[in-house]
């Protein structure tokens, strides 16, 4: 766990995120993370290797003697036959051809049957030399590898009873171990491959950061679109479209509709106003909200006073906006599984970023607040009063306070049941975007040039936002506002928002219909708004949460999150790749895809190479070239034809493993060497496959889902694309 964690936070993510810490501490942290990462991975690999070696010894001792026995028995058979023929010829007084042939042919038939039995049941390989054994150490090692990778050539297989039993148990333990190891290695390789691809292969384009970035992203989106059947979206949404391809479910339906809409502030404003009206429709009971409002209001008055009211207006709007999006998400999301996935992502996001930016805590708070409203009224009551109480009693008020909202959210996750969680807003990207907007404004600055006005605005705010740490109160205040504004603009700029005022395309209309079904109520709007205010105010004091506590909280929330999300009930097969994916799936949701979905181009001023998707064709090309390279190598080593070697490589890497071509079957002299080559080849190859699955799966799933959506067989495509890569 810790290893993966460390791996998911590479240096370039860690470094800018902890401005409060000294470089020394950062370095120690970083090295510790690297250490744990290395140790965990190396340990796992060592475990697998030692497991293989142990298995090799075991099988050698179990099966070696038996093989020798079989060989001796075959030799005895032949000697017996020779002896018998001699006797037959010797005893005969008169050697008549017919009788003799009849007798000898009977013996020969027996002999043939015995040999066949020795081959089939005894596993005899046709070699009588006692010094040459199949079950040498190398052979047994190869056998162990073949078993736990589920390739199963079958060129050597256990023949004794104990060997069979041992194989069964060995496989039961070894296969999951191997899969775990492979998935781990695949993760590492995927990360480093992404890094390589984006840092080194695309060094030129990433290097010239400012202008050509847009170009590059366009190019990238073209590339990613080549595989999808979606039509090209309008120019200003290129970056978005990338994310869109990745975000598998919700937004992919809206492809072309989300054009330039948000680059225009006026329209945006209109949209917001309109949104304001629609606000009350999120289906919560009025009473609940009212209660909420009361609590929060009290809260705010007691602690902060009303001083922050004006600034938070913007935030209100934005959060309203977002909850609207939530609403839409809910509408569109027919797959609960998918929703869960999103939920996991978004929650994780809060976690993930919170370790980086301790200074930006407000999104969780907001989330907590928005989530809180789903809870039952009494519980809210209780909790709110408890919070208040704690607030008064706690020694460091600001600190305790800062912890609070997260608490609320975390405890919330504990006791709401699944349905509620499903209904809770699902917005994968928002918080992350917000947080990064706040803290990395300067780095982002050059990137926003595609949207001039908002970018300008943002930049100004960012300059303000970059006040020295720790800023005085009014600075904080400014910064908050900057953050909120930035957030807002960022939301418009970077999200796949659907312009409602447009001539609405299909999914849009659906939303409209739905919303129109409920009457917008202004009173509720007000309630909601002030509620948002309160939550924002909450977040105001959270500028300096204690790092440690927040980390602990993060951990805890992670735990709770994972508790809430049961593993998705779709495993593919017990063994082989599907499970690899299944095992990898969660981590990749948690650690990789989220980032890749959220923090794409617009956010990480410098790229985060690990988060970028690598084009499918590259992965396919990699695997194919690996197979072809293996074909060339094996053709040279084993004197096979190229087709045979390619066939062998394919059959091996897909773990089918017929065993009609096995290395070191014909060439007995240097069997160790070729076995070693083959083992290395297949281990690395399977890891490579795992890696490319890891890299490709999200994009591929998105593409397939899109195709399925077009066809209107959405109901099934979820399972469908889970498997199709």
């Amino acid at each position: 766990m810790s290893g993966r964690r460390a791996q998911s936070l590479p240096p370039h993510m860690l470094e800018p995120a902890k401005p409060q810490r000294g470089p020394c501490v950062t370095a120690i942290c970083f090295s510790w993370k690297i250490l744990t990462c290395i140790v965990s991975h190396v340990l796992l690999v060592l475990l697998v290797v030692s497991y293989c070696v142990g298995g090799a010894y075991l099988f050698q001792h179990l099966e070696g003697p038996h093989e020798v026995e079989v060989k001796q028995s075959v030799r005895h058979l032949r000697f017996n036959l020779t002896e018998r023929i001699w006797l037959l010829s010797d005893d005969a007084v008169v050697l008549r051809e017919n009788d003799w042939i009849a007798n000898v042919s009977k013996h020969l038939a027996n002999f043939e049957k015995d040999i066949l039995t020795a081959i089939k049941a005894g596993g005899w390989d046709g070699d009588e030399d006692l010094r040459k054994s199949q079950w040498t150490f190398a052979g047994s090692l190869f056998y162990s590898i073949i078993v736990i990778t589920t390739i199963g050539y079958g060129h050597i297989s256990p023949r004794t009873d104990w060997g069979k039993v041992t194989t069964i148990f060995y496989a039961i333990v070894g296969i999951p171990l191997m899969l775990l190891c492979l998935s781990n290695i695949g993760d590492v390789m995927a990360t480093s491959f992404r890094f390589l691809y984006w840092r080194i292969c695309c060094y030129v384009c990433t290097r010239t950061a400012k202008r050509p970035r847009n170009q590059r992203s366009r190019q990238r989106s073209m590339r990613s679109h080549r595989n999808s059947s979606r039509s090209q979206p309008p120019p200003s949404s290129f970056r978005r479209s990338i994310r869109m391809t990745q975000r598998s479910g919700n937004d992919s339906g809206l492809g072309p509709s989300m054009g330039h809409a948000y680059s225009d502030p006026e329209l945006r404003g209109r949209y917001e106003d309109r949104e304001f009206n629609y606000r009350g429709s999120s289906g919560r009971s009025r009473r609940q909200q009212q209660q909420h409002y009361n609590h929060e209001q009290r809260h705010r008055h007691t602690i902060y006073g009303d001083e922050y009211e004006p600034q938070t207006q913007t935030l209100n709007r934005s959060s309203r906006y977002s909850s609207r999006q939530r609403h839409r998400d809910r509408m569109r999301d027919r797959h609960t599984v998918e929703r869960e996935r999103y939920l996991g992502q978004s929650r994780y996001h809060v976690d993930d970023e919170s370790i980086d930016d301790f200074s930006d805590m407000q999104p969780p708070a907001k989330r907590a607040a928005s989530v809180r409203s789903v809870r039952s009224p009494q519980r809210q009551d209780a909790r709110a009063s408890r919070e208040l109480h704690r607030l008064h009693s706690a020694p460091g008020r600001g600190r305790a306070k800062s912890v609070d909202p997260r608490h609320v959210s975390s405890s919330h996750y504990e006791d709401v049941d699944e349905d509620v969680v499903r209904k809770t807003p699902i917005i994968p990207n928002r918080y992350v975007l917000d947080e990064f907007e706040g803290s990395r404004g300067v780095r982002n600055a050059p990137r926003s040039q595609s949207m001039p006005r908002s970018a300008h605005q943002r930049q100004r705010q960012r300059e303000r936002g970059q006040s020295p740490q720790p800023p005085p109160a009014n600075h904080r205040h400014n910064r908050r506002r900057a953050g909120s504004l930035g957030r807002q603009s960022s939301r418009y700029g970077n999200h796949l928002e659907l312009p409602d005022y447009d001539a609405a395309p299909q999914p849009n209309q659906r939303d409209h219909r739905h919303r129109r079904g409920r009457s917008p109520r202004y009173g509720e709007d007000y309630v909601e708004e002030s509620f948002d205010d309160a939550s924002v105010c909450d977040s105001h004091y959270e500028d300096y949460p204690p790092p440690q506590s927040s980390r602990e909280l993060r951990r805890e929330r992670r735990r709770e999150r994972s508790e809430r999300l049961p593993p998705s009930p779709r495993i593919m097969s017990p063994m082989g790749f599907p499970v690899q994916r299944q095992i990898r799936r969660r981590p990749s949701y948690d650690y990789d895809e989220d980032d890749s979905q959220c923090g794409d181009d617009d956010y990480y001023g410098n790229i985060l190479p690990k988060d970028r998707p690598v084009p499918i064709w590259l992965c396919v090309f990699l695997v194919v070239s690996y197979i072809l390279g293996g074909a060339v190598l094996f053709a040279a080593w084993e004197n096979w034809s190229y087709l045979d070697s390619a066939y062998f490589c394919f059959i091996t890497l897909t773990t089918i493993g017929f065993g009609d071509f096995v290395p070191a079957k014909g060439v007995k002299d240097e069997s160790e060497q070729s076995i070693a080559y083959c083992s290395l080849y297949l281990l690395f190859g399977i890891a490579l496959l795992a890696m490319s699955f890891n890299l490709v799966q999200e994009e591929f799933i998105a593409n397939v889902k899109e195709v399925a959506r077009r066809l209107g067989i959405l109901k099934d495509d979820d399972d469908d694309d889970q498997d199709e890569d």
Partner: protein
Amino acid sequence: MSSRRSSVRRSRKEKPAFDRFKSHCRHFTAFMFSNVGIILLVTFYTIGGAFIFQGIEIFEYEKLKLNSTQNVNFSADCLTRIWQLTSENISFYDHQAYRKRVNDVLLEYQKQIVDKQLNGSHVEQWSFSGAFLYSLTVITTIGYGNITPRSEWGKLVTILYAIIGMPLFLLYLSNIGDVLAKSFKWIYSKVCLCRICPGVAKRRILRERSKMRRLAKAMYDMENVRSSYSTSTSSTTNSSSDNTKNSLQTSSVVDMPFSESDSDIEREIRGNTDEITVPVTVCIFVMVSYILWGALLFGRWEEWNYLDGSYFCFISLSSIGFGDLVPGDKVITADKDKVEVSFILCAVYLLLGMALIAMCFNLMQEEVVHNIRAIKRGFKACFRCYSS
């Protein structure tokens, strides 16, 4: 897959005229990827593969047979050679020399047999059922290897077939595994947890609740003691945050509604079967019993002993597939009908078994994850105790 693609193309081309046709296509593809359809799809794909491979390999075999027809009868060849030896040496009858020469001849014969057995092409294996089993082992990645393509085209087609077939099979597994898991959960909840009988279920729930309440209370007490301690002494961020967190947690635990009203319990009884986790032992029991059942079945068909039977079942279902034991291997020449039945039986057993094992792994994973989390929480609670 291919049907879907084709339907896309068609529907795009003739949109206005073939609206109905298009919708039919959609329904058809949707059905094909649904639970029932996927079984049909896999079956037909396998059958189609069987025909293709059979055609290719038999064609190849014919070609091979034309090339080399002479090595048909090894034993007769060997016999005549030994006879010649014997008749030649009949005059001097040197024991050692004769024996050595006969042994040489026999060794050659033996090598021929081995070669034929291990590397020869067995056309009789490419019967329809054999080809069917071959396609099945390809797409399930079992790969027994008792039947392998000898021709170049066979190898190429195998690669392509696997590329398309394996995702299809995985799709099948996930679909069917899902369905099986759901139904198994349902059955488990109804039968094993006695949810059918309301009295038993009610008692069980009451027991659980009381246990939980006791636990929560204990935790809360502990928490109170600790919180008083920490607020009085500490001002470090760590403990305060810890404190708040803990108190919040426990209070949330305590807050949990422990109303023992009938309606509540009723709801829980009726509740979602998704939330039930099936114990690992049950899953393991299901898997083991399936393997043993297969061992029994195949033991009867193939005259294997139980160990061999269960070994075969395990190796097959785990997709290792050594191929040292293969259904229909022993009786392949003796009885044609029996071979066919055995092949079909094996195919059904494999298809069902892999889905079943997928289901079991699914359920086990859920349970294990659940347990691990519980353990983690326990550890954390312990640590918190100590640290305060």
